[in-house]
């Protein structure tokens, strides 16, 4: 077994375990920390597949910005205490059965599907680098790229408006 394979399996195991911990942890702060670990392992997968630009963006956007937002909100709302009343056992079992059935169905589909292997003759090793992605992004997807900036503006205005305290609102 080569080193790459070992790294792949270890990364996969940590990804799935920490993802399960996100869902099962009682303390929301532990959930966020497990989610950060999941994102770092996914970044490892991206590096393995030579998607270097997206690996960097994943660290910056997810492990940086989004996780800071989550942690900030949790500490802002002071949710460390475990006052969450959990759902009934029946609901939990039903949820796990639904998820398990979906997993089984999808794996059965993948078994039946034939996925062609990669083609070494036409393989372009520079696909995941900034250069080739920039070419595609600014030539073929220029309009969606500009629309994304409008989306960000709307999201920013919306977040500020929702978060603003109206006169007469309670303090925390």
């Amino acid at each position, binding site marked *: 077994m080569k080193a790459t394979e070992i790294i792949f399996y270890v990364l996969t195991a940590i990804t799935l375990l920490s993802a399960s911990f996100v869902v099962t942890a009682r303390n929301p702060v532990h959930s966020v920390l497990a989610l950060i670990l999941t994102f770092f392992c996914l970044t490892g997968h991206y590096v393995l597949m030579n998607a270097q630009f997206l690996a960097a963006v994943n660290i910056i*956007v997810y492990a940086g910005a989004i996780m800071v*937002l989550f942690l900030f909100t949790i500490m802002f709302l002071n949710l460390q205490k475990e006052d969450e009343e959990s759902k009934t056992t029946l609901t*939990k079992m039903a949820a796990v059965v639904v998820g398990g059935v*979906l997993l089984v169905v999808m794996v059965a589909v993948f078994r039946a599907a034939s996925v062609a292997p*990669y083609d070494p003759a036409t393989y*372009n090793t520079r696909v995941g680098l900034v250069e080739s992605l920039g070419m595609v992004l600014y030539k073929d997807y220029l309009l969606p790229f500009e629309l994304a900036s409008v989306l960000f503006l709307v999201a920013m205005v919306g977040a500020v408006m929702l*978060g603003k305290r109206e006169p007469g609102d309670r303090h925390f």
Partner: protein
Amino acid sequence: MQPTQAPIQIPEVIQLIDLKYYLIISTALFVIGIIGVLTRRNAIIIFMSIELMLNSVNLLLIAFSSYRSDPTGQVFVFFIMAVAAAEVAVGLAIIVMIYRNTRSIDVGLLNKLKW
């Protein structure tokens, strides 16, 4: 004159690991996210489970893109990340507002739209 570029090998993981493994991993991540959404009542943890599902799709798109050496899939992942960042900002603002009004972020309390 073209700058000389060091040749990059085909990533070893693509030569050694079948694409089906990535299909199964991302399906498993997605299912974990679904189970999280269905079993938890804490709004922030439900939100984090949605992030897990988005990331499983990202993983799948990047796997297909780099196994097929087609950059379009990775551009899509870039857009998904942008939309996810905007979604998190608005969603967390909504959660803060819910907390301000109900002193709790238990989604079980928000049942006015049920049935």
